[in-house]
């Protein structure tokens, strides 16, 4: 068999050592009715490696990854230098598990410690954990952590301009948690969140803002932090496009209490939305309330520096139903990959790539001016909301010429039915932009039709 090594002679020898007649005898104690029905009858026969690759290549070819998509909205196409996957993918990183034996896991542990350090620096926060599933679950965990830190408060305030999927996940996670009400906070004409009134804040454990928010708009976290802290509430920021942070005031500098983010932009491929990586940071004094794994520095018996999993008493395998989270397997290798990316680009490369994004998106917005208009006046990074008459049909029209002209917002925001969320990164050159402008603009003179295909 493909991955099972024993020869018949070895199996016989092993059965003899065990003292049974056959492999079947080893499962004879499983109830016979169960065994009788256990055949994997609906599974196909196996394939050798060549045939399997042929089949998978055929499936891959059914996906259209050749075309130009101006899609962000929580998953961002960025260039990944070849060294990133090559290094993170080394077998010793990829096929180890949670470093329960630190003496033979220093590779994973030091890389995780470096990851925590780099993420804390990137977000300007005091501590970072070793990673969560994704940005959305990290945000939900931040809300749960806020609830632990402010246990009496009956409200959780979430910006309507936060990524809709993040809001949905928060809702799923809060369901069944007694006495918490989720309140949505509206946005203004600049696309930024209108800060809630003090009385609302006073009853809330936290306010959650996107940074940049779903519309690409950069919220003023400093103002928000002042307002929120005045009512002893916590400010949570959630960043989906983490590559914006090299240019933006850090959550830490703005006074955010818990800053979470999606790490996909930092060297992880899109892969149809996963695996990504949840980044989770907070103030140092909250550390014993953090969810997820933490790696800490220590020394060995000879005084040599080394790294271990630490503060595990927060975690499920020790604390069980009183743990800060149920998370066990996290996204370890993605964290290694992210720290490789952050190292390779480094301080200066990150700033350069971020600037390239900002320049390109603003150039595109400029070029689209004849086709539509910017819906919001707030500052943005590499993503913006374009309103144009008959948006849905025009979007369909562009699609027919192989261009995804951003994300139509009408499904998630019925009040933005005429709007597209458009993203341009360093992968979008001017030629691609011209194609988008042409595809959306081609119809600009045609009479707008009602009821475009959805």
């Amino acid at each position, binding site marked *: *068999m493909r*991955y*099972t090594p024993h020869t018949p002679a070895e199996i016989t020898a092993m059965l003899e050592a065990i003292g049974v007649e056959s492999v079947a005898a*080893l499962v004879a*104690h499983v109830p016979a009715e*169960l065994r009788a029905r*256990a055949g*994997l009858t*609906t*599974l*196909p*026969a*196996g*394939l050798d490696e060549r045939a*399997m690759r042929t089949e998978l290549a055929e*499936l*891959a070819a059914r996906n259209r*990854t050749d075309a130009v998509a101006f899609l962000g909205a929580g998953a961002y*196409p960025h*260039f990944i230098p070849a060294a990133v996957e090559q290094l993170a993918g080394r077998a*010793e990183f*990829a096929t*180890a598990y*949670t470093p329960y*034996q*630190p*003496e*033979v896991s*220093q*590779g994973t542990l030091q890389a995780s410690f*470096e990851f925590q*350090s780099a993420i804390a*620096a990137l977000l300007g926060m005091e501590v970072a954990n070793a990673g969560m599933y994704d940005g959305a679950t990290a945000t939900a965990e931040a809300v749960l952590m806020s609830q632990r830190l402010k246990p009496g408060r009956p409200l959780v305030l979430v910006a309507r301009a936060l990524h809709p999927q993040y809001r949905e996940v928060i809702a*799923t996670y809060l369901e069944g948690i007694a006495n918490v009400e989720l309140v949505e906070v509206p946005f203004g004409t600049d696309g930024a969140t209108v800060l809630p009134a003090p009385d609302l804040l006073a009853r809330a454990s936290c306010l959650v803002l996107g940074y940049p928010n779903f519309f690409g708009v950069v919220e003023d976290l400093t103002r928000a932090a002042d307002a929120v802290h005045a009512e002893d509430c916590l400010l949570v920021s959630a960043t989906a496009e983490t590559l914006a942070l*090299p240019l933006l005031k850090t959550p830490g*500098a703005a006074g955010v209490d818990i800053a979470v983010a999606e790490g996909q932009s930092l060297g992880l*491929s*899109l892969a149809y*939305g*996963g695996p990504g990586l949840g980044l989770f940071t907070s103030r140092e004094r909250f550390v014993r309330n953090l969810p997820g794994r933490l790696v800490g520095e220590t*020394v060995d018996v000879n005084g040599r520096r*080394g*790294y271990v999993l630490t503060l595990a008493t927060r975690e*499920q395998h020790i*604390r*069980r*139903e009183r*743990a800060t*989270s*149920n998370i066990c397997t996290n996204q370890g290798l*993605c964290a290694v990959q992210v720290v490789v990316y952050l*190292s390779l680009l*480094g301080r200066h*490369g990150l*700033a350069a790539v971020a600037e*390239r994004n900002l*320049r390109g998106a603003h*150039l595109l917005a*400029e070029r689209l001016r004849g086709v539509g208009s910017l819906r919001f006046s707030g500052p943005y990074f590499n993503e913006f909301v374009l309103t144009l008459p008959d948006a849905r049909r025009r979007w369909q029209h562009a699609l027919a010429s192989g261009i*995804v002209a951003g994300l139509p917002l009408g499904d998630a925001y019925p009040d933005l039915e005429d709007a597209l969320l458009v993203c341009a990164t360093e992968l979008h050159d001017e030629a691609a932009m011209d194609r988008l402008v042409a595809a959306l603009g081609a119809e600009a003179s045609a009479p707008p039709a009602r009821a475009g295909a959805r």
Partner: protein
Amino acid sequence: MTAPTAVLRAGTLPEPLIFERSTPGRTGATCDPTEVGGPAPADVLPAALRREDGLAGLPEVSELDVVRHFTRLSQWNLSAATTLYPLGSCTMKYNPIVNEAVARMPGFASLHPLVPDAWAQGTLELMARLADFLRAVSGLPGISLQPAAGAHGELTGMKMVRAYHTDRGNPRNRVLIPASAHGTNPASAALCGYSVTEIPANDAGILEVETVKKHLGDDVAAMMITNPNTIGVFERNIQVIAGAIHEAGALLYCDGANMNALMGVAKPGDMGADVLQFNLHKTFSTPHGGGGPGAGPVAVSELLEPYLPTPRLVRDGDGWGWSEDFPKAIGRVRSFHGNVGMLVRAYCYMRTLGAEGLTDVTAMAILNASYIRARLGGVLPLAFETESLHECVFTDRELEKTGVHTLDLAKRLLDYGFFAPTIYFPLVVPGAIMIEPTETESKQTLDEFIAAVTAIVAEARETPDVVKEAPHATFVGRLDETRAARRPVLRWKPPAPAND
């Protein structure tokens, strides 16, 4: 310069933190930000929103610095690609290299999750087929591929349990969980607002119907059972227990982390399971990645299908599409559609092995564990004498008398070039040593491992200090975990603080 033997130990190169390699101004990969037109950041971002620290605290290194750094670090890990990694309950089997190559094909890796469904038919077809495979293995009809790991699948499953009961007027408030369960079980139940009642097993390590019945009541939402349980023993009363649970109006949650023991042997659906999570990174061989990413799809009975997370994959003409049109759904448990990259790998694995291959996986996993159990049975006492399947659990009950504990034995195994078994879990076994060899290990490797354990037990009697002071031959010696927890140092800090 430091004495070289401290610098370089038998070919293992030392390496500082990446930050300690930094030189101000040095850079690895970069790009020209002005290669397109467009305004400078300062022209469009108000000063109050701009970053001011110039990214201090991030590395400033060359590409070669990065390559050397992470290549060296990688060599400090033991891993399934380099040695036996017999972590019980974790199923550290061989991770086929070809699956990595497939997952990295641009057709899969570069697909944006929000492209129109018509542009993603390859991935959607793969997901649909994978769901079918998981149906076949579990014997349950409803599948969601969304959860990111086992614990996330548990959370998803228990949210569905809650939704089911809520739908019937009362979410109930208790969940029964065996004392031997993995920590994620109670933690997941608690995250869903349930309190946990711990259920003891009998002296054979098996759940008794009567014990379960005693704790059942109309406040019980579900019982979470791992089968085979965490001592590797098949819960042979499972069908009767399932009946009792259902009779009480509760649901049976099966923790599917041990599916490696069940393919071709028994299906959770036949046992009476209502909901189950898979750990694709265990049974279906996606690499563990030093702690993830994994994937934790859930399978449910018809009863729970309406509650599956959305969006759900549905037929759309000849192809597939996403639908939110399930009013009773618990909603999303994460962004987008799951750890799709891991789903691709798991699909490759299942497709390669097929029905016969997967059945063989289980048979050989059980054979290997039984062989270790038989050969080490005379060296260390088993936690339970009951027949076991894909893993076996020993205790340090006898070993202790030499002053050597489970932890010491584990550390000493590292000197012999093996990763250690899972230790001190399950909690019900004092000084547990939980060994899961998996089916991909050869007899030679098992024999070497058995010889190593045997040698260490002899050392414990003859030269116990050698064992208690282990490891001796690893890159670093035994690490001080207490110090790490007492004075936590959780990050490197730039010499000049970055943000104030």
